[in-house]
């Protein structure tokens, strides 16, 4: 079956550096993608989303890039801070169907 997955399960970066978290998806018909951040003991929290008719979207310190040709999604975090340490999930959605999540990447920010 088609699924959403992540390239790396863990990522460690130095405080102040930029972070890039990658995600591969296999359902070419998916038209909406979201990145979530999940801190320990909490539910996932929305970070940023992008629709399939876009290839880039920027938020506050975060940028999502979508490459539909290779079915790849990435989350870039600028000037990573200790508070950014969490597990990051990408998710895909097709129309009004349910949202499917990847396995997650654990980001650790070293002081």
């Amino acid at each position, binding site marked *: 079956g088609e699924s959403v997955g992540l390239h790396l399960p863990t990522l460690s970066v130095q405080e102040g550096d930029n972070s890039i978290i990658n995600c591969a998806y296999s359902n070419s018909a998916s038209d*909406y993608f*979201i990145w*979530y951040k999940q801190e320990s*003991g*909490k*539910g*996932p*929290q*929305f970070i940023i*989303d992008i*629709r399939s008719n876009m290839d880039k979207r920027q938020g506050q310190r975060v940028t999502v890039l979508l490459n539909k040709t290779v079915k790849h999604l990435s989350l870039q975090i600028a000037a990573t801070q200790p508070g950014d340490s969490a597990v990051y*999930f990408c*998710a895909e*959605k097709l129309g*009004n*169907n*349910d*949202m*499917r*999540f*990847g*396995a*997650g990447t654990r980001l650790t920010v070293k002081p």
Partner: protein
Amino acid sequence: GAGVSQSPSNKVTEKGKDVELRCDPISGHTALYWYRQSLGQGLEFLIYFQGNSAPDKSGLPSDRFSAERTGGSVSTLTIQRTQQEDSAVYLCASSSYDRGNNGYTFGSGTRLTVV
């Protein structure tokens, strides 16, 4: 309320017992989802309610799992004859049908431990 509320936050139960997990979505959100998250894993889709439509139950792992949503608001996920492999965090999320995008809001989950 202001967010999605789940109860209990933690539940320890004996193998073979039935459990009920509750989700109070954001008022006015027509869509409600249940996901399961095992330790260190991603989110596994369980069931999706949208308004008065028949729920999408395609993610329920066995017939021991069931869910209902009364009055288009509160939802209860029931697990019968619990097994140790049912131990996980059960997350509920709701969203506005009209928005369907960043309207997804998650609760903090119920951590279920089957001993």
